[in-house]
């Protein structure tokens, strides 16, 4: 079985990079290889423009799938082990426990934690050495809505601090909300790689309606900035060039003496883009 096939990509410093794909598409395998716990049959990679080593991994904070800790030890004791592995400062422990909101529970054994707390401890552990790169594999998996929101806020805060983040997820709106760039995998092959904002603006639409829809549609079809005009549920849905804003549409129709009863801009979703990518390939 081939889990990954000729995958090739590069991530720039400061990106929040989303790795998207259905379950079993090779996201965890990719990250596992980058972290030396899964052996590729062929191929190479580099970290920080150097061949990978244990030292480069000390500069990376990573969680792969589930949080892995010694269940009989407390949060502090578990983090002490990681401090020794990463050769970082013991004082960082208290700091990250505050960051992920586990300070109050720091002396309870890991096995008594809820799933959300375990996940937060894993993110805290990843932050210990203040690494320039974070790898998070399905960080909101199995969490309740409140937990998901908490983790997302945490990731967004971390992203603001300028760290490079690689986020694997099968949740499209998660990647849309958090990431700057993304790559789509299917069956171990790269389908698409690009910028989230660009992908979303491709999907931007403007909705218009007026009392005489037929006239409206004919008029709009003459506008050079409108690439497509479809009638959907009593509204004209416009695909427009990036330069066209709702106010331009309004002005244009005003000049043509058409009164608009509804005008709205719909930003695209990664979901639409994703489905489009899957359909195209």
């Amino acid at each position: 079985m081939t889990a990954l096939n000729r995958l090739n990509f590069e991530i720039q410093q400061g990106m929040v990079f989303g790795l998207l794909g259905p379950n079993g598409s090779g996201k965890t395998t990719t990250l596992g290889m980058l972290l030396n716990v899964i052996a590729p049959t062929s191929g190479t990679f580099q970290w920080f423009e150097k061949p990978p080593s244990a030292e480069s991994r000390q500069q990376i904070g990573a969680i792969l799938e589930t949080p892995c800790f010694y269940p009989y030890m407390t949060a502090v004791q578990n983090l002490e082990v990681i401090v020794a592995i990463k050769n970082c400062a013991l004082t960082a422990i208290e700091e990250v426990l505050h960051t992920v909101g586990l300070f109050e529970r720091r002396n309870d054994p890991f096995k008594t934690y809820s799933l959300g707390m375990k996940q937060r401890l894993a993110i805290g552990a990843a932050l210990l050495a203040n690494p320039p790169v974070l790898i998070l594999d399905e960080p909101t998996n199995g969490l309740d809505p409140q937990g998901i929101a908490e983790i997302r806020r945490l990731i967004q805060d971390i992203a603001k601090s300028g760290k490079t983040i690689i986020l694997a997820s099968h949740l499209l709106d998660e990647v849309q909300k958090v990431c700057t760039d993304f790559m789509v995998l299917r069956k171990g092959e790269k389908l698409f790689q690009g910028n989230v904002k660009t992908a979303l603006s491709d999907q931007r639409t403007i909705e218009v309606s007026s009392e005489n829809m037929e006239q409206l549609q004919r008029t709009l079809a003459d506008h050079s900035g409108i690439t497509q005009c479809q009638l959907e549920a009593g509204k004209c849905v416009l695909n427009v060039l990036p330069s066209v804003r709702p106010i331009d549409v309004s002005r244009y129709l005003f000049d043509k003496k058409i009164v608009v009863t509804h005008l709205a801009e719909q930003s695209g979703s990664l979901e639409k883009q994703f489905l489009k990518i899957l359909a195209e390939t």
Partner: protein
Amino acid sequence: MKRLLQIEWLKLRHYRPFWVLGGLYVVVITVASLGTHFFLQYLKSQGADFRGIDPTIVPFYDFPDVWQNLPYIATYLKLFLAFLVIMTICNEVTYRTLRQNIIDGMSKQDWIGSKFLLLLALALAGTILLFFLGLFTGLLWGHPESYSSIFHSIEFLFAYLLEVTTFLSFALFLALLIRRPGVVIIGLTMYTLVLEPILSLILIENLRYATDSSIWETFFGKLAHFFPIRAINNLIHVPYQRYALMEIQDYVSLREALIVVGWLFLSLYGSFWLLRKRDL
């Protein structure tokens, strides 16, 4: 090296079985070492005698005999330490902390290295304990005229260190290979106490008493000396027949030690090979 030992200490410090099994090992070795004295006294009180000789004058604690006698008592007690090693290694696999350790920035060499240092530390602790027990019991119950050869035959302590280190490395390899603590613990115990001793005894004795042994009988008879448990446990030969005036091997044979060193390297390299080959 200090970092690797520190990592292991941080993991073990809060692990209750470490204190239970380690404590058991210390207590049982101490009781067995001291107990022989009282056992011989008990025999005397029951009127037992060894061909007319009073059991309490058996020079069990005389130097240098004590350096071979005590490590021999401890032969099978190393199983306690092996259980501990197996449990911690299997835990690292099932908790996936082995994988996380690598992700966090240990190399695979580091990881095997840290485990080896742990085994070595355990074996060293056992050896030091035996040293003090030997010194203490020898000075207390040995005949004063034996004091002149107090550190004679101290090589048996080094043999014990090698014996335990190799056995624990063997346990490390099995734990990484099989990954199920129950299976490994029961399997290793059965193999160490029953299977291999019986098998090697049959093969070796068969060769010794056969008048015209076939080439296979000769081959397996000689091969039996290379079996892991036979090799490891035979590093220190049974010393007790000497008190029945039989001849024993009262030294550590270099050839036998080399076989054990061979098993040590094989176990460690095998463990490393498993780690490198497998997806974690």
